[in-house]
């Protein structure tokens, strides 16, 4: 009996693995292999990003294959995934780092192994390591969201700030943008400022606690991402207030936030173009490997009718423009998604 059970366990593990292996797609030897090491496939933006990346036309026509590797919001996991990508001799790595500083060293390792690394979405501190990188200007997003709230709540508003995971580039830079606007508006008071780690659940709790301390003195909420903006709206509702009376702004353009904008509960969501960042990064990678004969395919580029100048792929840094979504254009954006 004991024997059988031991065997069963081994066999189960083996079979499960074999299923994964032989069920998976086998790469043609000549197609280019790109690995995308993302932050975490538990966050909506990363999933949107990954889905957009997988929809790149160069994958459909067999020019390249893309493997999305999940960093599980853990720097060590991401570091290990770099080892994996190097071992598997990928032709290029696209990287969304969990941490701004801890992300530098794995890139150095990949470069030492001769694999080009491209940034997308969030950045490491030493951007010189990238062959090229494409993101949106987070300082600008911070400015936009602060202005949106102050426009609604007035120049004497008392506001709270919900911060992302401390130390990540998006948090650092969006806060920088917020502070820039606050400096220009000395009448605005910050009642509270704390991290909800990008998380909706944490933001609900944090907002409820803020409201317990300050009640309806809170006249505006600056959320560094949409998950937290949606959480804040929920917290406001739980406290018995009407979310429509408290301006809330967030960044990313996730579905729930757009719906909240449509209902008039969220003043503005600043849409981060996942499509542009993901497909743009793949274009940059393929251009690097293939050379000038490669023509970019993503819709974000000017050569394909978008707003971002391709400039023959020669730049090291590309900024994907933001789209401010308010009640005026939300219907159009929702249809587009």
């Amino acid at each position: 009996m004991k024997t059988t059970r031991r065997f069963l366990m081994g066999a189960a593990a083996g079979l499960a693995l074999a299923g994964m292996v032989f069920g998976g797609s086998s790469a043609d030897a000549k197609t280019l292999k790109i690995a995308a090491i993302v932050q975490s496939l538990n966050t909506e933006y990363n999933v949107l990003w990954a889905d957009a990346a997988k929809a790149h036309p160069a994958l459909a026509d067999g020019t390249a294959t893309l493997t999305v590797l999940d960093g599980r919001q853990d720097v060590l996991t991401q570091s290990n995934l770099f080892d994996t990508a190097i071992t598997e001799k990928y032709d290029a790595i696209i990287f969304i780092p969990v941490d701004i500083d801890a992300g530098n060293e794995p890139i150095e390792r990949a470069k030492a192994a001769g694999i080009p690394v491209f940034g997308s979405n969030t950045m490491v501190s030493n951007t010189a390591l990238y062959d090229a990188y494409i993101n949106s200007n987070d300082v600008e997003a911070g400015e936009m969201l602060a202005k949106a709230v102050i426009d609604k709540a007035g120049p004497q508003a008392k506001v709270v700030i919900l911060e992302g995971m401390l130390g990540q580039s998006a948090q650092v830079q969006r806060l920088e943008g917020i502070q820039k606007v606050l400096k220009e508006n000395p009448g605005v008071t910050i009642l509270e400022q704390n991290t909800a780690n990008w998380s909706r659940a944490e933001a609900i709790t944090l907002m409820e606690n803020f409201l317990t301390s300050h009640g309806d003195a809170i006249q505006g909420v600056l959320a560094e991402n949409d998950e937290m903006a949606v959480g804040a709206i929920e917290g406001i509702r739980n406290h018995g207030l009407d979310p429509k009376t408290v301006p809330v702004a967030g960044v990313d353009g996730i579905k729930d936030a757009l719906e909240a904008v449509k209902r008039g509960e969220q003043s503005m969501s600043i849409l981060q173009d996942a499509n542009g960042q993901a497909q743009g990064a793949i274009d940059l990678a393929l251009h690097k490997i293939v050379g000038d004969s490669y023509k970019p395919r993503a819709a974000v580029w000017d050569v394909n009718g978008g707003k971002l100048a391709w400039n023959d792929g020669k730049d090291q840094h590309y900024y994907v423009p933001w789209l401010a979504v308010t009640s005026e254009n939300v219907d159009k954006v929702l249809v587009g998604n």
Partner: protein
Amino acid sequence: MVSASQSMSGMSLGKFIARYGIVISFILLFVVLSLASPNFLSTNNLLNVLRQVSMNGVLAVGMTFVILTAGIDLSIGSLLALAGAVAASLVTGADAFNPLLAVAAGVAVGALCGAVNGGLIAYFKVPAFVATLGMLSVARGATLLYSGGRPIPNLSLEFRWLGQGLVLGIPVPVIIFAIVFAVAAIVLRYSIYGRRVYAVGGNPRSAKTSGINTSGIIFSVYVIMGALAGLAGVMLTARTTSALPQAGIGYELDAIAAVVIGGTSLTGGIGRIGYTLVGVLIIGMISNGLDLMGVSSYYQQIIKGSIIVLAVLIDRSRAGRE
């Protein structure tokens, strides 16, 4: 009963397979992965796997001591982060101290927290689950407080060598893990202390009547666990080049899983540290192998979870019969 002291001679084939089932599973997994991914067997990748498992390995060694006494330690992920932050603060910026001082500080912080755990469990009879659950929260809070909630970057090169360096082509974390493992294996197998750990976990009452200071033994295993969690925190920080306040979340699960897959009984007294090593390697190989094949992390979690539950099922059915 399969115990460490049992003689190996005169074993039937069935018994052999029963005892070495975990090793057979390991070999099976190894073969499957080698066939599935051409790069799995490369020296570089095998060294990668060893380096990747070294931190969980160090944690799992400590966890083996704890579980052998029928205890559990849920706080190690937080201890690791706290020790990492303390160590990093000593080697950051221009006036970096000697990295060995940082290692000592990290290990000491871990051991101190472990002593609090052990004291509560051994002398105040707080259930291990509760005491270490409390420490999980306390140490995480202390980490955030100590670091101001921000990562501690710019660590000295000498310190980072502990996570990234090579000696004769072998990664330093692997060497640290090998030393920790060897010492623990010798202690558990050949020392009086080791036999007492087994005795306390197997039957605390008879251990007490035979004159063993059971409270002292229980206290000590949590100090060992804490010190090793501190060491793992230092290794992790050196590897990732900055101390992150949110590091190590969930690491206790992988350490417990490695021990349990290795067949150590959660009810204490039964188990071998050698099999813990096999458990550590199985978990590391699953992650690495599935990553190499590009299998979605969603599946990986399902596979890992299933294997852990299967291992405990086997343990339960065996315990029920014997």
